């Protein structure tokens, strides 16, 4: 009994140091694990020469459903607009994805098709893009429209601070791409918002 008591301060000290070490290792490990995979496909293409003819009419395809077979995700897609504070709206239902109708259309031949979706919601739990951070370059993305299905291949995954999200993500010109956007990073309990946007870039397969 006396022997146990004599060891107590050392045991307490050891437990305290172990807790501090676990916290620091966990923090470091997750900071390192922030997804930065693959090379971002550039949006920009050489500008057409001045005075060239007007572009051909593009088919007005509207996305209906998005599938990520590698993550076993299939979610309906509805059009969304830019809302307050220039934030792109997200459908209320966390299991439904939004397509920015002000951006490019699938099959249009140029520009970035932008799809966003909840990572989670306080009421609805995990959202349709909860697993987005698990996407890997080479994974397939299928976007079904009212005209057919477009296949894309994931090229890169990036995490950006929301305040410094590159405008090229929303490029309406240049190479045809698809971006999937959700939230990531740390979560501010005060504002109930994540600090980052997680962006997956894909190009037509």
């Amino acid at each position, binding site marked *: 009994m006396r022997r146990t008591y004599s060891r107590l301060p050392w045991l307490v000290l050891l437990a305290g140091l172990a807790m501090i070490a676990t916290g620091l290792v*966990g923090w470091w490990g997750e900071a390192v694990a922030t997804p930065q995979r693959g090379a971002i496909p550039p949006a920009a293409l050489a500008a057409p020469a001045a005075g060239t003819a007007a572009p051909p009419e593009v088919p007005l395809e509207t996305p209906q459903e998005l599938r990520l077979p590698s993550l076993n995700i299939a979610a309906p897609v509805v059009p969304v607009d830019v809302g307050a504070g220039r934030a792109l709206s997200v459908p209320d239902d966390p299991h439904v994805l939004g397509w920015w109708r002000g951006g490019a259309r699938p099959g249009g031949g*140029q520009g970035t098709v932008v799809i966003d979706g909840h*990572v989670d919601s306080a009421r609805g739990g995990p959202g349709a893009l909860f697993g987005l951070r698990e996407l890997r370059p080479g994974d397939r993305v299928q976007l079904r429209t009212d005209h057919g299905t477009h296949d894309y291949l994931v090229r890169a995954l990036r995490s950006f601070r929301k305040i410094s999200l590159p405008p090229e993500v929303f490029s309406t010109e240049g190479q045809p791409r698809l971006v999937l956007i959700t939230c990531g990073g740390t979560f501010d309990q005060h504002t109930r918002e*994540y600090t980052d946007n997680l962006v997956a870039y894909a190009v037509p397969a």
Partner: protein
Amino acid sequence: MKAAITAGCLLGVAVLLVGGGVAAAQTTSPAPPGGGGTAAQLSEQDRAFMMENAQTNLAEISTGQLAIQRASSPSTKQTAQTVVSDHQQALAQLRDIAQRYSVTLPDSPNPTQQQLARQLQSLTGLAFDRTLLPAWIGGHQQAIAQAQQEIASGTNADVQQYARGFLPVAQKHLQMAQSDLQQLGGAAPGGVNAGTGGAAAPWASRGLLGGLLGGGSLLVAAALLLLRRRRA
């Protein structure tokens, strides 16, 4: 007392008369049609407005003509036709006034407006509309402010009358451009707020890090206290 009131009334009438005279002197009579005006009949404000407005007209005509060819949205094309036609008419009126007062107007848009036109030359499709419409909105807001300034502070009746006619036209164009941009889904997004649950956040940001570091520190402090007490 009576004398003081009479003196006060006389002073008031005098102030009104002088003030009226100044006000009358601030607005010059319009030049007779077909000539007769001189550059001296224009204030700095009148002259500055004429110069800026001529460049606005030139810029809107040039970008509007480009939009008729290149805009991807039918409503933007329609707006462009109205913009070109209205600004051609406005420019003709302004040139007429300038000729009457022997003022030489600029024959090209300002450098910023020229830069926009060059940028638009390299764009097609939605990118063209998305670049043009915010620029038109900004340009028309500026032109409206300039016309309002001329109406409020200009001195030449001809130029002010022109500004009064120009104002509702620019306001109409502004509304049309705003409506077109709205149809395209508004301006480009700046970000996405797509999570309110916090379940996807690293556990470190969910209070666990604070708990581990705080709890660990408390235990270390308690252990040190026990060790110190034992030595004493």
